[in-house]
Every structure is written in structure tokens, then in C-alpha cells.
């Protein structure tokens, strides 16, 4: 994939996102993480190659069908893309509004979700007046409000301290347990180490996929070992 006439940013890569999986995406700054995610959330067409979604090849899909696919993918953008003329509530409710649903149908759900991410008392605020971490949580609320099947998070912990980063990661793990496929881009290897999840690493436009530790290490004793290693993160969630 390339931007305009620029150099090829991503090349020769191929991967599957199994339903219900949790994948990390790492790589140095500028490696093309955001670019790869743009392909997944259908913001950009690959210059060559194909992307299949829920068993449908997007290259052959008519344009009119793409919005419906996009609604099955929630995105936390690296730069949030919050709308400053709308309240926190309206921002979070955006994906529901574009489907034409009425406010009365979703008002409670949105309020509940905002409370869940700790913004229950900031629903009428202007996003521009929120702290970076608060904006991040609005972006997360918006990404998950329509209960997408795939959740894509581009550096969702980029603007927060490690404590908040842990809490946000926990939130994603919760969503994953509820069945959402998650792609979590970060260059924070500390976070990556907290979970036993496959890690996709981008460098020089190539993708390297590392299976979860549980599958890398030899079977017998490791189940428990991995379990133990995962333990602290899991414990803190509860």
C-alpha cells in the first residue's frame, strides 16, 4: 500500500484476524501501524491486494455496501477525531445516529457506557475541554457504542499514564471476553507483555506475527506458567 505517488508503506503482508481474538500490533513510529489499520477499517483501499471481511472480498463489494461493513468495525483513532461542536454524549452516540436510530432508543445505553468509562458526569461537556485521557475514553466509548464485531484501537493508551493505560487495556480485555475481536496498536511493550496474545510487528513495511507465548513455549508446564504470568493483569481487572 502507498499514499498517492509516495513510497510503498506496506508490502507483502498477509494475516487473519480470527473471530474473537485479541491481537497486538506493534512497530516503531512510522512503521505503518496506522496505515495498516486504515486498511482494516476501510478508510483506504489497498493499492494492490485484497481484504476480506466477514467472508466478503471488499475489492468486489459495491461502494454502497461499505457503510454497513464499517458499522461492524469500531475504531479508536490515534488522534481521536472527536467533534468539538458536539457534546461528549453526542460524540459517543455518533455511530448510532448515523444508522438513523432515535435518541430515545439509545440515550440510556450511551449514558450507561459513558458512566462505565468514568465520564458519567461529563456527558454535556465539550470534548475540547477534556483532558487527553478523558478524550481517549470518549473515543473508546464511541468506538464500542454500536457493539462492533471488530474493535480497532490505534494507540489508545498513547496519551495516558501507565495506570490509566492498564485500566484501558482491562476495558479492552473485558470487551474481548464479550466476543469482540480486538486489534490493539501500541508501541508500549510493557502493555504487550501483560497479555498472552499474538503480536503483529511491523517493520520496513513487512509484518511479522508472533504467536501467543502459550503456543510458543512447550506444552505441559506452561499452561500454568502462562496462567501465572497473566495473573496480575487479570487480577487487577476484577
Amino acid at each position: 500500500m502507498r499514499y498517492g505517488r509516495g513510497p510503498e508503506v506496506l508490502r507483502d503482508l498477509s494475516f487473519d484476524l480470527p473471530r474473537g481474538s485479541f491481537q497486538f500490533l506493534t512497530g516503531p513510529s512510522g512503521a505503518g501501524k496506522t496505515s495498516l489499520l486504515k486498511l482494516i477499517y476501510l478508510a483506504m483501499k489497498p493499492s494492490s491486494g485484497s481484504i476480506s471481511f466477514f467472508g466478503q472480498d471488499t475489492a468486489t463489494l459495491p461502494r454502497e455496501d461499505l457503510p454497513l461493513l464499517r458499522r461492524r468495525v469500531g475504531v479508536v483513532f490515534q488522534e481521536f477525531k472527536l467533534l468539538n461542536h458536539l457534546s461528549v454524549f453526542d460524540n459517543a452516540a455518533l455511530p448510532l445516529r448515523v444508522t438513523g436510530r432515535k435518541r430515545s432508543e439509545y440515550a440510556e445505553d450511551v449514558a450507561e457506557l459513558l458512566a462505565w468509562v468514568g465520564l458519567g458526569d461529563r456527558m454535556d461537556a465539550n470534548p475540547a475541554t477534556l483532558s487527553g485521557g478523558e478524550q481517549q475514553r470518549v473515543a473508546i466509548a464511541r468506538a464500542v457504542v454500536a457493539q462492533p464485531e471488530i474493535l480497532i484501537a490505534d494507540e489508545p493508551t498513547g496519551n495516558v499514564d501507565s495506570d490509566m493505560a492498564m485500566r484501558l487495556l482491562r476495558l479492552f480485555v473485558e470487551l474481548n471476553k464479550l466476543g469482540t475481536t480486538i486489534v490493539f496498536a501500541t508501541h508500549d511493550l510493557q502493555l504487550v507483555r501483560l497479555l498472552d496474545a499474538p503480536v503483529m510487528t511491523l517493520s520496513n513495511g513487512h509484518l511479522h506475527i508472533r504467536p501467543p507465548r502459550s503456543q510458543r513455549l512447550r506444552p505441559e508446564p506452561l499452561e500454568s506458567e502462562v496462567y501465572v504470568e497473566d495473573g496480575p493483569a487479570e487480577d487487577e481487572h476484577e
Partner: protein
Amino acid sequence: MSDRQIPPPPKGGAGALLPPDAGRDRPLFLVAAILVFLACIAALGARGAIVQAQAWTSDLETSLTIQIRPVEGRDTEADARQAAEIATEIEGIAAATAHGRDHAEALIAPWLGQDNLPDDLPLPLLVDVELNPGSAPPVEALQSALDEAGLAASVDDHARWAGAVKRAAGLARTLGISLLALLMGAAAAVIAFAARASLAARIDVIDALHLSGAEDGFIAQLFQRRFFMLGLKSGTAGALIAVIVSLLVSWGDTPADMLFFLPRWSMNPFELLMLGLAPLLSGATAALSARLAVATDLRQRW
């Protein structure tokens, strides 16, 4: 940190998806209003010219003029009176009025001056003939009756003048309509340009909506509605100013020959309809160009 005061967003989750365009659309509003105003004036002017020309040609077509040439040894005024009597006898003629020498002198006074006319200068005299409405001008019957009576008279059916007036009216109409078309084209172009600019300034909104799975029509609708209202408002303002100007023109003291090209207010259905349609047309143009601009932008995305 020099943070601007950020206005509080609408509470309760019903904020408009497109932000209010405080001030940004004012130049567009103004230009569109001016263009609609000019278009209305052009249309009213063309319409006025057509109506005026119709009135004149129908005046000319329902009358004839008999010209009595002066002949040595004859009383031209008596001949004129006789010609009027002969004319009233003829089928299709309602009335005939013989004008005396005073009338003829008054007609040529602008060229020769009031006092410079020698009393014995032979002048042709005129007889105005009014026709019954609907009947074909009996030019030949009248001419032969006059010839039989031995009068040196010729009948003029005004065909030449009526033709000239009609040509002038046709020209005014063509001019008015071309002007109207040009102005409407300019208005559409300005509005389309503004729609594009407004779109560029709102690219974040389009981005967020598009990536949230909004259909193209949904996004286009937002801009379309916004621009329809804007076009409607500026069209209304332009049409209102046109009404005021044409009222002023028809009340004011305007030389008659200028009136031909100036819009005049007459409360006829055509003008009311046109002035009523102008804002709607302006709104529709704005909505359409906004829709096209959005569609073009969205098609460049995936």
C-alpha cells in the same frame, strides 16, 4: 496558554451534526442575495418590456392613419374632414378623427421650431382611424373609397412601426432572458464554490461520519439541508429587495422612454409567481450544488 472560550455544546444529546456556521456563510449569503436580486430585476425588466411592446403593437394594430397630401388649389382641411366621413362609412371602422393644421404643425415643431413655419407651407394632414376590435384592417377598401372621392390620400396601416416595436421587444426579451440565464449560472457557480469551501472546513465531520458507517446520502443530506436554507434565505432577501426597487421605480418620476427597460411593479400573477419562485429556485440550486460537492468528495474516499 491562550485558550479561546469554548462555547458549551448543546445539552441532552440533540446537537446538530453540522456545526452552526457563525459568520462563515455571511459572504455567500450576501453574494447569493445580490445575484438573486439582479436576476429578479432582469426578469421583471424583460417582462416589462414584453408587456409594454404588446400594448404598443396592439395600439398600432387597432388603428390606421390616413394622410392627406396638400394639393395646389384644394382645401386640405376640408379634404381631411371629408376623408374622415368616408372612413366612418366603411365596414370595420369604429371612428375617424380629422386633425387640423395645428396638429400637423405641432408634430413637426420639434424639427422646424414653433415660429419658423410660413403660413403657406403646404403640410400633409392626418386622420386617425379607429378600428372595431377583432376586424381585419380594411386598408384596401378605405384606400379605394378615398381614391374614388378624388382625395389625395394614402392609408398607413402602421405595419412598419409595429414590426420595429416588436423587434425591439424581442430584443429586450432575449436580452432579459440571457441576462437571467447568466445570473443564474453565476449564482449556481458561487453557491457550488461556497458549498465546496464549507465542505473543506467541515472535513472532520465528514471523516467522523464516513468512518462511523454513515451512508453517502446521509452526509449529503446534512449539507443539502443546510444549503437549502441558506439559499432560501438569501433568495428571499434578494427577491424582497427587487420588489422594493421595482416599487420605487414605478412610484418614482421616471422618463417614459427609460421605463421601457426598468422593472415596474404590477401586481400580476406572473410577477408574484416569479418572485415567489426565486427563493425556492435559489434554495434548490444551493441544495443541489452542495449535494454534488459532497458526493464528489465522498467518491474520492473509499
